[in-house]
Structure formats: structure tokens, C-alpha cells
């Protein structure tokens, strides 16, 4: 298929891997991918082992579900138990553990949770079932934020009184800056998330490059995209440079998607927020703006999302920060498996632990 197959061409992949191995220095450059889709794609195509010894690929906090705190799941469950409420959610939230339970387990006990593919489906449901209060679990990064915002705007335009969103939206560059400053992680380059960048463009990474002197390359999702970005990062290291480059120009314009950013600016306002396993990162969250307060489930239904650093044997925090590999977690593959995940990284196929479990990690 156009835009996909060309970027999977095995002969080109082989040639590029060889080129990277020739150009790599010693010790291997430490690169972090901060997107779950990259994590899954790297695992699926075996790139980590193909590149082992040449570059070391470390996974960051790649997935909005993974970094959603258990307090959010608890608030969603509390909401679901109120009479007349229907929760709507992307599918992979259902098995994410809260403090005591999951949405899936509570659904078996009778709360109404429906999986939707788009937040607009939740708006359509609200229009179709005016007697029920429809709450969308608005979890996401910058890629999803405009879709959630677009749904809120649509509900507002249609004057729906029975639709609201429980927001859990996080923005990536602030988290990358925290990770960049962490001496234990020692990141030498970022594979910047392609679809987040579709929305925000390349400018938000400039500070990482200039202030933290970390090369940043915006990266697509096919094997050749990732290898291209890796080789551009190696080239920057060799030059002693730290710039922002774009290896995914077919998807990412330097200025991002203006319309999507306008929707975000209209519907949301920046706030401090907690990341599962990482802690509170100032300015890294989006709350619903006062203009759309009527669509904010937290305010409308009085179910505050309480953030506390979780006390659990799950080492997701260290996995999300690239400090350990999943097999180094004592629960990995034993108490924690995809069918019965203890931590969110094991929940969906893009979770770092799930990707390792399914494909094996190869060598670092």
C-alpha cells in the first residue's frame, strides 16, 4: 500500500541497519522513544536486536493509558456507579488497574461501560439516549486532545445537556524535559513521537535541543522511518550537534496542525498533572477550560481525580523512565501477564511490558 509498503522494504531495511552499524560509535548511543506505537513497531520488527551493540533503544512514557494514574481509574469507577451514568471509553482503558479494581471488573458487576472508537461516537450516543448521562473517558496525548476537544465542541454546538468528559490529557514535551534532566537515564537523543508531532509540529522540541543539548528527530512508524531517524540522530552526535530534524515530513509539517491546535486552545487550558510512575509534572496536563465547564465530568458530577504516587510492586515507573527493562521487574511474566496485567504497561500491545512479553526484547 502507498505510504506503508515502501517503508517496510526488507532490502532497504537491511542496508540501513548495516549503515547504522558501520557509523555507530562505542559505547552505543542511548536513544529514547516516547511513543507506544514506536515501542510496538520496534518490538514487532526486531529493530532492538538488529541494532544491539550499535545503539541502545530505551522506551519512555509512550502511552497515555500507561501514564494515567490509578486515581483516574478510581474516579471513573466511582462515576460509573452513579445512577443513570454510561461511561464510554477507548478499549484499552478497561483493563487498566485502579487502586482496587478495573472498569472491566466493575462492568461485570453492572456498571454501564461501552467501548467507542471515536469520542464522536460518545456524542452520538448522548444524542440517541437523552435519558442517560454519557461520560467519555478522555484519555490521551496531543494526538487525541483535538479529537476530544472536537467532540466537546460538537456536543456544545448541538446543545447536548447529557454529555461530559472526564479528562486525562497530557502533553509530551514537558515530560521529555523532565526525563532529559534525569542523570540516571542519560538520554543522548529522542525519537520524537510522530503523531503527537502531527499536531504540535517541531517547534516544541527546540528547547530540548538547545537547552538540554539533546538531538531530536521526529519519527514515523514504519521500520525505515525509525531507522532513518536513528541514523539522523547518529549523524548529529558525530557532528556534536543538537538540532530538531524531521524524518517524517509526509505526516508532520513544521508548524503542526493549526486547526487541531486551535481546538485544543479553545477547549482546554494547561494545568499541572500527575503521571503514573513519574509524579507531578508542572504544566504537562490539559484541563477543560472554564468556557466548557458544563462538559467537565469532574466538575459536573463532583468526582475529583486524586493523584497520589501509587504504592505497588509494579515497576512501571522505572520502565516508563527507561531505568529498567520489563524483564527486570520481578512480576514480569509471572504475576503480571497480558491476560491479567498488574501494571498498565502490560495492558495493551503498545505497552512496553506487553511488547516485551509478546515479541521478546532482544538485547539492549
Amino acid at each position, binding site marked *: 500500500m502507498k*505510504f506503508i509498503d515502501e517503508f517496510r522494504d526488507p532490502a532497504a531495511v537491511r542496508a540501513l541497519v548495516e549503515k547504522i552499524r558501520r557509523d555507530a560509535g562505542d559505547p552505543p548511543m542511548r536513544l529514547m522513544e516516547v511513543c507506544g506505537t514506536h515501542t510496538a513497531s520496534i518490538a514487532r520488527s526486531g529493530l532492538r536486536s538488529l541494532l544491539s551493540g550499535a545503539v541502545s533503544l530505551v522506551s519512555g512514557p509512550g502511552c497515555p493509558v500507561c501514564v494515567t494514574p490509578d486515581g483516574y481509574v478510581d474516579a471513573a469507577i466511582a462515576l460509573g456507579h452513579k445512577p443513570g451514568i454510561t461511561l464510554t471509553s*477507548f478499549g484499552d482503558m478497561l483493563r487498566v488497574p485502579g487502586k482496587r479494581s478495573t472498569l472491566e471488573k466493575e462492568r461485570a458487576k453492572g456498571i454501564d461501560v461501552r467501548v467507542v472508537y471515536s469520542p464522536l461516537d460518545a456524542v452520538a450516543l448522548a444524542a440517541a439516549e437523552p435519558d442517560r448521562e454519557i461520560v467519555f473517558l478522555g484519555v490521551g496525548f496531543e494526538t487525541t486532545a483535538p*479529537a476530544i476537544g472536537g467532540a466537546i465542541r460538537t456536543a456544545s454546538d448541538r446543545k447536548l445537556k447529557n454529555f461530559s468528559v472526564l479528562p486525562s490529557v497530557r502533553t509530551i514535551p514537558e515530560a521529555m524535559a523532565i526525563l532529559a534532566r534525569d542523570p540516571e537515564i542519560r538520554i543522548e537523543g529522542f525519537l520524537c513521537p510522530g503523531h503527537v508531532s502531527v499536531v504540535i509540529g517541531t517547534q516544541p522540541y527546540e528547547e530540548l535541543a538547545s537547552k538540554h543539548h539533546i538531538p531530536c528527530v521526529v519519527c514515523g512508524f514504519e521500520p525505515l522511518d525509525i531507522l532513518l531517524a536513528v541514523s539522523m540522530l547518529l549523524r548529529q552526535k558525530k557532528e556534536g550537534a543538537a538540532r530538531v530534524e524531521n524524518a517524517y515530513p509526509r505526516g508532520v509539517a513544521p508548524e503542526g496542525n493549526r486547526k487541531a491546535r486551535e481546538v485544543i486552545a479553545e477547549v482546554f487550558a494547561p494545568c499541572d498533572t500527575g503521571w503514573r510512575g513519574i509524579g507531578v509534572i508542572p504544566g504537562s496536563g490539559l484541563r477543560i477550560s472554564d468556557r466548557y465547564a458544563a462538559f467537565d465530568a469532574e466538575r459536573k458530577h463532583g468526582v475529583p481525580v486524586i493523584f497520589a504516587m501509587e504504592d505497588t510492586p509494579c515497576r512501571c515507573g522505572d520502565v516508563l523512565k527507561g531505568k529498567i527493562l520489563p524483564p527486570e521487574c520481578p512480576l514480569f511474566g509471572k504475576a503480571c501477564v497480558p491476560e491479567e496485567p498488574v501494571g498498565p504497561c502490560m495492558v495493551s500491545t503498545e505497552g512496553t511490558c506487553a511488547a516485551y512479553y509478546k515479541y521478546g526484547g532482544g538485547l539492549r
Partner: protein
Amino acid sequence: MCLAIPAKVLSIEGDNAMIELGGTQREASLMLLEGVSVGDWVIVHAGFAIEKLSEEDAAQTFALLKEIMESGSDEVH
């Protein structure tokens, strides 16, 4: 959950498009994207088209690849 995939626009009605995504047809909102026409390729995420893909830009990636492949290495073979 951040799965966004290239899809082809089959038809457009107002702010809505019918798209082909991995062999199946689906609706996608065009609320977040300007200037989309039938036949275009778009990246779709959570029911919204968020960017247009152009062959020109894809060609640019291959040009980058070529440049990288042809750049010198430290080692001699």
C-alpha cells in the same frame, strides 16, 4: 491507543468523510483538517483526520534516506 493510520478518502459530505482503512470503510470527521479532497490520503486518529499525506513529502523521506545511505562512513571496507 495512539494508533493513527493512513487512510484513503472515498467520499466527502460536509465535515464528514468516508474513508478506507485497512480494507474496511469508516466515517471520519474532517473538523480538524482543511482542504481535503476525494482520493487524498489522510492520517486518521480516533475518528478524526489529522493530517494529509502527500507523495511529494513521502518522496522527501526517500531523498533523506538516499542522502544518509550515500554519506561517508568512518570505516573503509
